[in-house]
């Protein structure tokens, strides 16, 4: 029988054109840089193909190979500490009655708004060579393994907590009522209902923390001392020794555990079925004095820890000459005294963050819409999906290194982007593409799939429905993506450290440079400015969400 080949409408042609453009763009900003990195690992310093020679020399140099073991060790220990701690905190937030719950929730998020070197700097003030509590360490030093782990716990805590809050929040009260009615003990209920329900969240949180620690650069740079890890090795090979080939090899080694964790996470998530059906009754915790007191205490202690680290960084940034002259001053905020760029690097960061938020949000949302709503065309849509997921598995340092090799290659027509603000924006958008894409896709899947069918039957062009209906409905998610991009662009160090030029240096990078030059106070001051900026943007977002959107979106009201 002859099979029917359905003709394409103008809508179909435009959407397919869009999908092809998107695939090409993602190929340029994600695929080809990674390919360039992969290829570089097989070349010698002069660009001649040398096969596996670089890899052989990597694995036979104990100094290099040890860093890989160090990285795994630090990541494993940090994960083992963070995940149970975050679980307790998330459990307190979702399953107990906390006084001032919103405050505890907010404090847990603080580290997200800071560049990762902030906890490192705070630890130097507290336990460093001239630290307040140095005596507590006995003869030990905070520089190295211990310092990295403590700082990582601070830095990764909110990421794990967010995942576990989501996992624990989706509970069906009926299961607990059934367990109660059957006379199960509290402990038995915890092990047979609570824990299995949060199982996938726990696995996901562990993998995310593990990846964050392994790929983070700022903490190890500031407080690692002579304890080398993969991320600092990449930096040393590329910036210190200008050995790009070996840098590429270390980058590939860094990519392996991150990619593996990503694949495992996807496989695990696929097994997860929706625990919360439409008929589930949400669980609302009832007051229970003893339990609530214990969890309030736990949350208070954790919050004090977070606030102490942040407070130490702020205080340190305001002090004249640590630890000899503790009088307060704003001198450390006069960045021109410490770095040639002065405050310019801060404004560069803001410019870059705004650019990434605008350009990235438009690209991610439109891209997700094209991938979701284009009829047929499965192969190209599949390519887009793959390229959109790839950045999640790629550490920022690795992507940044790929950008050097790809955009700086002689003969690349896109070479004009190199060392401009443009490449920083593009790199940041690419680095954080996956989360934005997923957020947009989730939002799009929640709206009625028949909107496009209705528009087609009414002969209304599909882009009109996109701008008049789809995008306005998804406005809250679009704002979420924009804020996510802004905050990450403000705080990221790893992906941009290879890509800035003297004119486009970013605040987070300047902080690394200033700290390297030995001025901890000014580096802390710069970190504080970053925290204040990204936190302020987040607060404005929350207020806008609450008051402005409510007015703009009157249609949501019943």
């Amino acid at each position, binding site marked *: *029988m*002859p*099979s*029917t*080949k*359905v*003709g*394409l*409408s*103008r*809508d*179909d042609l435009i959407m397919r054109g869009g999908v092809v453009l998107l695939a090409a763009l993602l190929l340029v900003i994600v695929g080809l840089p990674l390919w360039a990195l992969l290829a570089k690992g097989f070349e010698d310093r002069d660009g001649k193909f040398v096969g596996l020679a670089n890899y052989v020399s990597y694995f036979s140099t104990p100094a290099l190979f040890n860093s890989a073991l160090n990285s795994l060790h630090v990541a494993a220990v940090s994960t083992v500490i963070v995940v149970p701690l975050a679980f307790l905190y998330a459990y307190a937030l979702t399953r107990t009655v906390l006084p001032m719950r919103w405050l505890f929730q907010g404090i847990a998020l603080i580290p997200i708004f800071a560049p990762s070197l902030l906890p490192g700097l705070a630890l130097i003030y507290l336990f460093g060579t001239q630290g307040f509590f140095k005596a507590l360490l006995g003869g030990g030093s905070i520089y190295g393994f211990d310092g990295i782990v403590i700082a990582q716990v601070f830095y990764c805590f909110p990421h794990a907590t967010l995942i576990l809050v989501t996992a624990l929040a989706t509970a069906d009260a009926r299961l607990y009522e059934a367990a109660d009615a059957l006379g199960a003990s509290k402990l038995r209920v915890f092990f047979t209902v609570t824990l299995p329900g949060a199982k996938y969240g726990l696995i996901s949180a562990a993998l995310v923390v593990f990846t964050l620690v392994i790929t983070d650069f700022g903490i190890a740079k500031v407080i690692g001392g002579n304890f080398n890890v993969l991320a600092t090795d990449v930096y040393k090979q590329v910036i210190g020794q200008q050995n790009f080939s070996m840098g590429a090899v270390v980058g590939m080694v860094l990519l392996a555990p991150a990619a593996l964790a990503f694949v495992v996470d996807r496989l695990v998530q696929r097994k997860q079925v929706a625990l919360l059906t439409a008929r589930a009754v949400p669980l609302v915790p009832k007051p229970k004095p003893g339990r609530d007191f214990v969890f309030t205490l736990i949350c208070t202690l954790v919050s004090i820890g977070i606030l102490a680290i942040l407070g130490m960084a702020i205080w340190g940034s305001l002090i004249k000459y640590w630890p000899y002259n503790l009088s307060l001053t704003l001198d450390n905020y006069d960045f021109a005294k410490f770095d040639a760029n002065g405050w310019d690097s801060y404004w560069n960061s803001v410019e870059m963050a705004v650019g990434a938020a605008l350009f990235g949000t438009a690209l991610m949302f439109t891209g997700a819409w094209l991938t979701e709503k284009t*009829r047929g065309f499965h192969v190209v849509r599949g390519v887009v999906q793959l390229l959109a997921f790839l950045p999640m598995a790629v550490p920022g340092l690795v992507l940044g290194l790929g950008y050097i090799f790809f955009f700086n290659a002689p003969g690349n027509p896109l070479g004009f982007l190199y060392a401009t603000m443009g490449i920083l924006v593009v790199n940041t958008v690419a680095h954080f593409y996956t989360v934005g894409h997923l957020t947009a896709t989730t939002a799009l899947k929640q709206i*009625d799939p*028949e*909107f496009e*069918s*209705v*528009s*087609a*039957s*009414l*002969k*209304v*062009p599909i882009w*009109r429905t996109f701008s*008049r*209906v789809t995008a*306005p*409905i998804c406005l809250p998610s679009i704002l979420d993506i924009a804020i996510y991009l802004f905050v990450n662009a403000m705080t990221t160090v790893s992906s941009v450290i290879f890509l800035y030029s003297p004119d486009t240096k970013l605040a987070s990078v300047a902080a690394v440079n200033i700290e390297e030059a030995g001025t901890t106070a000014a580096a802390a001051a710069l970190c504080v400015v970053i925290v204040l900026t990204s936190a302020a943007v987040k607060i404005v977002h929350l207020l806008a969400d609450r008051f402005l959107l409510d007015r703009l*979106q*009157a*249609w*949501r*009201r*019943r």
Partner: protein
Amino acid sequence: MTYLEVRSLSKRYGDFTALGDITLDIAEGEFVCFLGPSGCGKTTLLRAIAGLDPQSSGTIRQKGRDVSALPPAKRDFGIVFQSYALFPNLTVADNVGYGLVSRREKRAAIAARVVELLAMVGLPDAGPKYPAQLSGGQQQRVALARALATSPGLLLLDEPLSALDARVRLRLRHEIKALQRRLGVTTIMVTHDQEEALTMADRIVVMNHGAIEQVGTPQEIYRRPASAFVADFVGSMNFLQGTLMAPDKVQVAGVDLACPGQDGLTLGQKVNLCIRPEDVRVRDLPQGTANRLTVEVTELDFVGAFCRATLKARATTDVAMTADFSSNLIRDLGVERGTQLDVALPPDRLRVFAA
């Protein structure tokens, strides 16, 4: 006049055949229901006609024009979904006028048409409201007005009433049917609710496993089901196992029963003899009435307007059938559990299907 011609339409997903060789004609102005259990292919057929999920093979002609390979935007239809698919961020008036705006009509003309459409569906004051402020039934009417705004030649309704309360559903049935009759628009409605199909349709297409079981008026489908599936799916039906003894005689549990003449079946074949519960007669049984039996009432379930009785023939104990008795009959004859009755199975109400 034939408005829609479906010829040898098939839809396959890999090895699975969702629609197998469907051929169907729909006349202009007709109200047709696709009726069947879930997974029977009725929605697939509707979406193929709309071009939303194109067929694997076969042709569709609408008003003489071959639309088989056209994308939805180039076909002529309005559609209403079970979910309504109203745009939540637009007012009711903007929803209804959505398809009119892109035709570059004058703003005043669009506004006038929207008012007319809203009045037509009985919601003259709903224009400035948002969909979330309306009840389900009102939302469905807005969806209907939006689908009719551009005066399409074909109206497609995909389970439009199944998300509504029973009462609202009953009222909307009549309103939709009356509106369709007034506008004369050719309409196809997909439903799994046989009562809905029987009350609304001019013709019903009963589907099962991706194939058409029977096409006919509601009376034909109900009175003369063409297959055991249709007999079972539409309305209640007793299935009595028996053997075909003569072209017009079936033996059930040793009792010979007269039935309409059969020619598609072979003698001696196992068959099912079918009768609807309301066709079992109790009163006015003169001497010589065909298929007269003495039975015992073994169960009597009160259903409200009538009672459903389970009857067993005295001669045997394992053949049972149900019969619907009116309240009057129950009272007049004093029927209760254990009562013995004479009943008749009128031959012209019996259907015979191969077992």
